[in-house]
């Protein structure tokens, strides 16, 4: 057990980290489908895969963030049976935006502070603008009203959910 949770293994070996990200992404997608309905507020839920994307972008850099965003989005599109590519596009852009805040060697400092929440909020806003713009295209509903109703709520809820990884990192300064 101690080998599995040997943190240094993930810190030093990037392959292990990427495997861990992949497993975590699958796990979060299952959580999203099965359990997130319990904390849905007016059908609005936090986007866990988005938080993972921002995390990867801040830890691994913009390039990895873009790739991670695309793959997480694709995974989300598949498991949520959404239009293929809509989440992939939105999360790719989110990873790209979050990647601008990458600072080598200071990733955990960023994640463990309120800066992480601000990055999440900004990236989530862009993510949701793109996503709900694509979402409302085939509908007669106006984008602005729909975005103000659901996009802003989802952004806020996701930002609130991002508090938990922030607190976890904040309490473990030895990362």
């Amino acid at each position, binding site marked *: 057990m101690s080998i599995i949770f040997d943190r240094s293994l993930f810190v030093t070996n990037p392959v292990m980290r990427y495997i861990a990200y992949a497993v975590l992404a699958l796990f979060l997608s*299952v959580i999203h*489908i*099965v*359990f997130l*309905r*319990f*904390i*849905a*507020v007016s059908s609005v839920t936090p986007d866990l895969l988005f938080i993972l994307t921002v995390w990867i972008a801040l830890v691994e850099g*913009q*390039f990895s963030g*873009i*790739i991670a965003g*695309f793959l997480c*989005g*694709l995974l989300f*599109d*598949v*498991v949520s*049976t*959404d*239009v*293929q*590519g*809509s989440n*992939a*596009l939105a999360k*790719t*852009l989110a990873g*790209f935006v979050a*990647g601008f805040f990458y600072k080598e060697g200071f990733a955990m400092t960023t994640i463990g502070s309120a800066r992480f929440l601000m990055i999440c909020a900004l990236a989530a806003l862009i993510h949701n603008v793109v996503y709900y713009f*694509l979402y409302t295209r085939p509908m007669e509903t106006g984008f602005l009203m729909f975005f103000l109703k659901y996009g802003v709520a989802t952004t806020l809820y996701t930002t609130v959910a991002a508090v938990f990884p922030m607190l976890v990192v904040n309490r473990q300064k030895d990362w």
Partner: protein
Amino acid sequence: MQRFIEFVVRFKNYITLCVLIVMSFAMMSFGDLSRLGGFRAVIVGSIGWMQSVFAWIPNPVALKSENAQLRELNLQLSIESARGRKAMVENVSLRKMLDLRKRVDVDLIAADIVGKTTTQLRNYATMNKGSANGVKEGMSVVTDAGLVGHVVGTSEDFAVIQLLLNRDTRVAAKVQRSRVDGIIAWDGETTLALKNVPASFDVQAGDMVITSNYSTRYPANIVIGRVTKVEEETNSLFRKIIVEPSADFTTLEQVFVVAELPDEQRRDLERRVEERIRQRTMER
């Protein structure tokens, strides 16, 4: 080539972004998972299985929302049910009235009761048909059950009916079975009294009372009510006969106006004869 590689390395983030955006749009234009056939079935099946495994966990938020929705639905269904019941009752009533229309050979004007004044000594009803619809003062008003009263006032669109349960009611009536004549008057309650019937005449509880040919105000043979009680009065030549009106005045909603006025010539003649007899009596 070296410069191209350097360019790619330098702008790899932007190039990757562009490529992935193009791929995303390509996937969107490709369409949804339904085109992936078996793959979609596997995904949907897996998700469905996972959700069913954890379906037993109650969701308080969803339950609350569902509860609210069910309450709203329940309210709507209650309203619908009440409307349905009302429509059914109205339907039965209107069908009876249609039947009445077929039974009588005079013109009838259908009207709805829009107001009622049923204080003890003033039992009037207002209906939504007036002189513009051919309603005139003196016309009789009936329902499928029987006589209701007569019109005592009209405006262009409304008319006021004096109900049978009124202190001024006097209707020449007869018992349908035995053809015994009498006068129907209001007894002050919810029933009527058949007066001027000698004690020796054949009247029994259950007999139907109808309007008489002697009536100058109402058409003949309209049902007024049913005899419910016949009492012998001590020191009197007459019986006390209680008649239950056939028309239900408490639930009066639709009525018909008999579009026929009392025969003026007959009334005029009777009035003149009465006047002459009164004058002769006074001369003597």
